[in-house]
């Protein structure tokens, strides 16, 4: 996926492409400084992500939210770096 031109720095929502919202999790995403604060998806982080109405793809180092629960909410989780492809 090419990075859209409207990509904002510092927001986990990196862009919207064909109605799908793309997110990238990073450390300190919630503005806290805890070591593990952010790059692993939890329900708490999920709730705090910028809103996007439609399916989402979230890139992160791991997820504690079960894949089936994510799927129910039309979220595809992509585990970094395993599921990133260079072409």
């Amino acid at each position, binding site marked *: 996926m090419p990075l859209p031109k409207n990509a904002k720095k510092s927001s986990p929502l990196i862009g919207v492409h064909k109605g799908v919202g793309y997110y990238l999790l990073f450390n300190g995403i919630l503005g806290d400084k805890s070591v593990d604060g952010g790059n692993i998806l939890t329900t708490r982080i999920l709730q705090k992500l910028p809103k996007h109405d439609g399916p989402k793809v979230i890139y992160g180092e*791991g997820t*504690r939210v*079960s894949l089936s629960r994510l799927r129910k909410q039309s979220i595809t989780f992509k585990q970094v770096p395993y599921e990133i492809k260079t072409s």
Partner: protein
Amino acid sequence: MFTLKTYQQQTLEKLEAFLRRAATTKNPTVAYEECIRETYRRESNYNDAGFPNVPYVCLRLPTGGGKTFLASHSIALACKEYIGKDVALVLWLVPSSAILEQTLKALRDRRHPYRVVLDEAFDGNVSIRTVEETLGISRSDLAGNLVVVVSTLAAWRVDRTEGRRVYESGGVSKDHFEFVPKELLENLERHDSENGGALKYSLANLVHLHRPIVIVDEAHNARTDLTFDTLKRLNPSCIIEYTATPKVRGSDRSNVLYNVSAAELKSEHVIKLPIELLTLGEWQQTVSNAVTKQRELEAVAKEEEQTTGEYIRPIVLLQAEADRVGQTTINVNEVKKCLLEQCNVPEEEIAIATGEERGIEGIDLLQRDCKIRFIITKQALKEGWDCPFAYVFCSVAKVRSSKDVEQLLGRVLRMPNVAPKQQDPLNRAYAFVHSRDFYETASNLTDSLTRCGFEPNDASRFLEIKNIQVELGLDLFSQLTRTLSSAPEPTALPRELREKVKVNAKDNTITLVAKITEEEKKQLTELVESPEDKQVIEQLYRAVHRIPMSYTSPAKRGEVFSVPQLLIEFDGELRPFDEEILIPPSWNLAEHHAELSETEFPIKVDVGTRGLIDVDSTGKAYFHNPNQIQQELTSILVSSRMHRPELVVWLVKETRHPSIPHAQAVVFVNKVLETLIQKCGLDIDHLVYVRFRLKEAIKKKVAEHIEATKKMGYQDLLFADRVKKGKGKFSVGEDIVFPREYPANSVWKGNWQPERHFYEVVADMNDEEAECAFIIDHHPNVEYWVRNLERQEHHSFWLQTSTDKFYPDFVVKLKNGKIVAVEYKRDKDYSADDSKEKRWIGEFWETSSSGLCCFLMTKGKEWDKVKQKLNL
């Protein structure tokens, strides 16, 4: 984005469990029978079909279930879980050349989901070939790639011309057979002794040598002795079949490992259901009704587009009669004339698709500028033709070949975009059939659906009778009148029966006006004397029971059944008590010990086979068994490129877990390797060589760490909390609502009809559970109840245990609003640790609910206790 549906995921999990078990026990029979026992709680009888040590199983998915997509996934499973190799040779067998073309086209398209699956699993080292293209394959192609040969079964038949080229010597390069241990060559085909008896360098021999994974598409066509003989020549390592309609009886039966039901497809919005059926006695009327339906649907589709942006142009498939010499038939021309003249359909909206006139070939029906709304055909459409816009099936043919009906009906089932539509009419399919006998038609359609892979129960459930049937004066039950040799006196009937059954003693007729139960049928049978009359009543009963009606479940009535979940206060907020919070956010795999014990990873076993590593360099080999050597030879070719960093990368990738970050996994895998090298004195070559076993051991270790952490978290949250401050942190709320869909994998077929079940059907139960259900169903305090589905977290009520989700057998709503969850446990299972934990969390849910919810686990048939709970 093309992710697995829940039922697809579950199908693959079953396959994975089976393959692992087959790999460890080395006995497919035992593995299969154990898996069936676990999944279906019944005994089974594995049919090895003459392949004693080859796993040979069948996965059953109804039409539209995504067989081919799963077939792609199963290749990776078979390769990694069963054979334990990085790459393999795969024979993908299809029934016809039309499907061959389609499959090839999809697998060759790097953006197609079938291919993406393979590329991801094999790092893009994938080579898709026809038989012809495989003839020129090189040894390194085979060693470094997943090679998938797509072909028909006939291409491998020794008695066919197509088959000859694969058995011909010189078909493939001689290189393939050099430096191969003699033992492996023993079973290969040779020239006759008068021709020197030399080895044939044929493709068949090459395949034999490589022990292919065999995928059989539409496998019901491939259960003959001839097929088995052909497959035996190819020396498969495992065979996985896919079909909607497997053979399940007889000596040629398939070993069905898992069955997916139509309800599961429906709940994932893969197919349109139910099918509304209308039968009409006049064919022109049938056509005009179909046209009207098309116009209605198109109007609804416009509204849908306005709200969702999704474009749908509903299409009608019309089945005309074939031309017959000397007879007038309702042929293609007649139907077209009717559309043009009587229904005022513009000609551009009509296409004819028959053997002679190929009006839809090369046309993309999904395009907006396409005008086609009516497709007239005679028999079936070309195999694999598939258009989600097809909503209406209309048949005017009097003589119907069931195969054609089945095929055409299958064509209107696929849901556009695999997503539910806001406009409900677009979630269904429609059938208009020219027929005077509604019951016969409904039965035939039910049979057709069964052949599309629906369970007979599902099939009749999803066929819905249109209300209009009654409005048009075709009273449904008017056809349920039969003449008896001697009808009983109306007064002889028990009172309740008189409302359902009308008897006319004058002209000796009997008419059903409502569905009768099995019990009532018995009463009726006793009232008539002659065996013929008894037979007539039996037929009537059957007729009415093939057709779903009368029971309007609470779910259908639109009732809402909601159950409070157990909540926990976490980070200052209440949230469902589920798996996620059992593992603290700061948990780090890298901090856990990474030593594999002798039982977790036995080292000694490999000593004997280590000599094999030297085969490449010294030419000496130490043999164990030929199969093993053959597998290992190929893996040595690949693994010789692997050193420690590559091994780490490989292990990290193969043991990936979605909740563990890459960095932690790298540290952990390195620690594992370090201890094995330092403490056990193993060298990297050895570890590379046994990496598939090592991968399994690491996966298991990681799973154990996670499990132990979850157990600790569970203790901490529930017990420590309970001791410290009572149960202040817990409450109930955020009710789960039972959805409209009830994706039961198999349906209970018992001898009594539940009257208060929340859904029309009840998921499978064993005899004791059914007895428990009977008590619940007949209890006066019960509003309705549900047979809770296992492993369907979005369709069921569950409670979290330290390892898993617990799905109580029954969830009951009482008339006073209270909720009762009942788990039936056999006496002998009651005290098991697992039961104790479930009981504990169930009771904890009850106490946290302040009287709103009750929980009961029975110890055997404690029906009094069940009643007591329901009396509250």
